[in-house]
């Protein structure tokens, strides 16, 4: 077995009493005070996440924009400097390579934040498919630590510690400034649905910033948060997670991410297949479901129609700490996608009633 990688915050997690587990090749904190408590802390106060396992890929050159528009489904030409967007990268057959955030540093420099489990794959894929463009692509993952500060109290905690005006930093914008004595890229992005920021730091500064935020935010109720609550928080928002709602065999159209597939921008990898999927519709699609009967839907559980026939399966499911019921995302036969449709989830051989609902499941204030 290969050894697990550790983020610059590993010692802080150990000292903080986190439960550490292997995740995507990293030894990561899955929980601190308990998933439920951490989840609700982020919803009502603020939480601090170590997301240093995420990958960072830099693309530079005069043709960076054109290249990215070929590699990605969203339209990068819509970005101004210091603005970011969410996108998917597809294979020719419409399957997903990864989902990621693109930060436009300048006309000739973009930072891509990709999933930890996909860094090597993405890096190879981007290099291989950018040969016709005058760009330089580098894997910068070892040069970044990343901390997410999320929750309604985030700005109140961070503002006294930074020279960036957080009130004017709106959704999907970012800027460079200081946190205490450290340089940081501060982005108005996140994976919880709450107001918050993601901080891109030099690895050597991560411990300092982590402790600074925990110390200064203590009075406002900030707590460190593990990957367990990160997953329940994103699931309440119906945000996809690669390997679950998106994969080599699941296209962004099937995953209800048509809004990041810009067919009008011109040809890109996968555009022919994706256009066909948009025009003809797909056989299956992603739904959000809420349990009517007791039970917690889990990944892989079959979804049944009213006659007990299998129509799909759960891609991610959990008990929702905010709503106190079982919720799930599921890939089902498109005929059953309408909000309000009654379906069942097969839980350990028994069928339990559920209903297709509008997502997000939870609406932050």
């Amino acid at each position, binding site marked *: 077995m290969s050894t697990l990688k550790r983020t610059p915050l590993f010692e802080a997690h150990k000292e903080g009493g986190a439960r550490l587990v292997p995740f995507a090749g990293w030894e990561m904190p899955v929980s601190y005070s*308990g998933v*439920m408590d951490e989840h609700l802390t982020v919803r009502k106060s603020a939480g601090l996440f170590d997301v240093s396992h995420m990958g960072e890929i830099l693309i530079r050159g005069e043709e960076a924009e054109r290249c990215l528009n070929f590699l990605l489904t969203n339209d990068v030409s819509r970005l101004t400097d210091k603005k970011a967007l969410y996108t998917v990268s597809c294979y020719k057959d419409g399957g997903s390579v990864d989902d990621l955030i693109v930060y436009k540093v300048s006309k000739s420099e973009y930072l891509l934040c990709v999933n930890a489990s996909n860094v090597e794959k993405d890096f190879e894929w981007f290099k291989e498919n950018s040969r016709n463009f005058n760009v330089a692509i580098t894997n910068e993952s070892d040069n970044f630590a990343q901390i997410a500060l999320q929750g309604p109290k985030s700005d109140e905690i961070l503002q006294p510690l930074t020279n960036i005006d957080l009130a004017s930093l709106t959704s999907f914008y970012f800027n460079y400034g200081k946190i205490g004595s450290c340089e940081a890229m501060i982005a108005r992005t996140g994976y919880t649905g709450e107001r918050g920021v993601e901080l891109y730091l030099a690895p050597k500064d991560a411990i300092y910033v982590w402790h600074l935020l925990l110390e200064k935010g203590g009075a406002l109720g900030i707590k460190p948060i593990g990957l*367990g609550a990160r997953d329940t928080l994103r699931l309440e928002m119906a945000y996809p997670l690669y390997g679950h709602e998106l994969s080599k065999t699941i296209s962004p159209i099937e995953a209800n991410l048509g809004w990041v597939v810009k067919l009008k921008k011109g040809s890109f990898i996968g555009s022919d297949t994706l256009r066909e999927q948009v025009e003809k519709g797909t056989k299956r699609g992603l739904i959000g479901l809420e349990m009517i009967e007791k*039970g*917690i839907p889990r990944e892989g559980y079959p979804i049944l129609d009213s006659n007990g026939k299998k129509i799909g399966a759960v891609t991610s499911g959990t*008990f929702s700490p905010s709503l106190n019921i079982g919720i799930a995302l599921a890939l089902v036969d498109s005929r059953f996608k309408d909000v309000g449709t009654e379906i069942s989830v097969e839980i*350990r051989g028994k069928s339990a009633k559920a209903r297709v609902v509008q997502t997000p499941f939870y609406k932050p204030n």
Partner: protein
Amino acid sequence: MSYEIPDDLFYTKEHEWARREGDFVVVGISAYAQESLGDIVFIELPKIGEELSQNDTFGVVESVKAVSDLFSPISGKVVETNGTVTETPELINQDPYGEGWLIKLTMGDDSELHNLMNATEYEEYLGQEAKEATEP
């Protein structure tokens, strides 16, 4: 980390406990089990009257993130289930050896209790599990 392990109980390798109460046995999960699972949010228990053999699964306990089967420490017939924990599963976290009990069984063959671990043996068993978990 150390966990509460009452002296008067018997324990399974799957971390259930059994307490002899005359002709009956009360069953629950250990402090270690509830701590490892985290916040318990759902519990499924058998029907009254169900006949269980030793090591049979008799239900399921779920935390926010995990699903775990429950194994019967002994053979017997279910005479009572804890209705309070099905409504408020967090009781299992708060008081695993008391209010968080799960089922009550008739005591059939009391020699089966000797297939289980006593408190000292269970403590050693937890120590070994912890050691294995930290070894590379």
